């Protein structure tokens, strides 16, 4: 395969694979809790973290993880301690994240090119060192989301019941948002902060058109996530398009396909004589 002759492309495909696995693994719990936009909010606040990295002249990945995790924790605390769904807090995160990011970027005097590479991803510049960081973080995310799947399922399904079952609900909720923040920072390299959430949500939505249970949805969502990430990244090489956008468009195409399949299957069942 021609594509595998380029080292930068091999690194890009590995990064895409890791993100394709981790994003839906976290996203499924956010979707289950009907907080699909949480990933977006964390993505926006991560921009402030990236800018803080430039401002303080340190690695933007780590400042993004820290700021995004703090933002997520604040939204979670507001959600759990008040009776609102936390969507006003989420909105603040959206606005504050972008505004704070642009402000700090200006103060740090970085170029717009730099800003764009975080907003929309820069998959092809993934270095070997980046890959180690992404790989390590991805393993941590998978350990939490797959290892803790039964408990996370229980708290996202029915939080009150989970409390009476003796689960450490508050800890698990915070663990989930911190994991989401880590995932966002892992994925920003690949699809960019503005499209991170798409990769968390769309594979899950596509999978749940065809499945009946949670664990089946999880398995299928990870499969779809990997296929669209690797497929989209590879496709962008041949089509000469932006990898992040190509991945997301591919994911939405898969969603449309599974949606039509589900509708078709339903129609067939209806017309089949009992």
């Amino acid at each position, binding site marked *: 395969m021609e594509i595998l002759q380029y080292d930068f492309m091999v690194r890009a495909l590995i990064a895409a694979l890791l993100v394709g696995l981790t994003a839906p693994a976290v996203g*499924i719990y956010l*979707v*289950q*809790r*009907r907080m*699909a936009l949480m990933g977006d909010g964390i993505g926006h606040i991560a921009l402030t973290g990236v800018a803080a990295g430039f401002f303080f002249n340190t690695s933007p990945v780590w400042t993004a993880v820290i700021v995004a995790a703090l933002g997520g924790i604040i939204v979670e605390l507001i959600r759990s301690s008040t009776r609102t769904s936390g969507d006003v807090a989420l909105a603040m995160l959206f606005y504050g994240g972008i505004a704070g990011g642009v402000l700090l970027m200006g103060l740090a005097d970085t170029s717009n090119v730099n800003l764009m590479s975080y907003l929309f991803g820069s998959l092809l510049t993934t270095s070997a060192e980046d890959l180690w960081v992404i790989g390590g973080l991805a393993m941590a995310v998978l350990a939490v989301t797959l290892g803790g799947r*039964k*408990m996370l*399922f*229980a708290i*996202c*399904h*029915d*939080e*009150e*019941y*989970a*409390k*009476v*079952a*003796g*689960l450490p609900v508050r800890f698990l909720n915070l663990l989930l948002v911190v994991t989401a923040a880590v995932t966002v920072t892992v994925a920003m390299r690949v699809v960019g902060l503005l499209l991170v959430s798409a990769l968390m949500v769309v594979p*899950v939505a596509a999978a*749940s058109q065809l*499945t*009946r*249970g*949670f*664990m089946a*949805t999880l398995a299928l969502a990870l499969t779809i996530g990997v296929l669209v990430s690797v497929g989209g990244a590879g496709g962008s090489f041949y089509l000469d398009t932006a990898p992040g956008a190509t991945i997301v468009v591919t994911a939405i195409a898969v969603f449309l396909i599974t949606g039509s399949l589900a509708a078709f299957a339903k129609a067939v069942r209806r017309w089949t004589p009992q």
Partner: protein
Amino acid sequence: MESRQDEIVALDHARVTYERQPAIDDVNISIRRGEVVALLGANGSGKTTVIRSSLGLVDVDHGEARLFGTPLKRFHQWQRVGYVPQRLGAGSGVPATVTEVVASGRLTRKKLFNGRADRKAIAEALDAVGLADRAREPVSTLSGGQQQRVLIARALAGEPELLVLDEPTVGVDAASQQALAAALLDRIRTGITMLLVTHEMGVLAPLITRTITMHDGHVAYDGAPHGFEPGDLAGRADAHCERGDLEQPPPIDEHPHAPGVTANMWGEK
């Protein structure tokens, strides 16, 4: 003070305030092992609040709540408690099968690798609520009453010593209520303690050993259910079920005492 040995649920001068007015105030309740207590009262009288505060889902701002003799702050043996909430919160955005939901009832059992016992308990719980044949279906395709039965199965799957149910029979049809009563009776025979909120006792009536009526955040009545002599619980329940006596009594919103009238616990003659 009496022994706390077999005191399962206790509220001591409990007060819960959500916003301004206390939802319950100066509530004293003590439930001992093996009792089956019906919590009655009008809408908004504080039944759910009594249950939520005795399970620690809402903090008492005065007084104390205890489970199994231990103040809630120090209580950790949640595997002894099963809970059926009044209604499920925000619906799930991802499909889940009946088995998956019932399986979360096993999470109280801390042992991680106990597959066989888990599967057995889940299957028995599904049998008890008559949903064994729907085990692999997504919960969202079940009717409201069937979903309610899934929540009951989830609580039963944990094999609790104390079962707390908030209006378990709302929307559950007569036939399923009877299956449910039979299943609960089985558990009662094994010595389970039950606290259940209900508006209509229906077929559960013969299981009840004691009623507590809430009125405006206070306990208005606490004692034997009217119309039944305490005694052979199991025999009564069986007889009742065999008669197929399924009339729905009117909801009790008032004090159940009616002096000089021989009435059953619903005030019917």
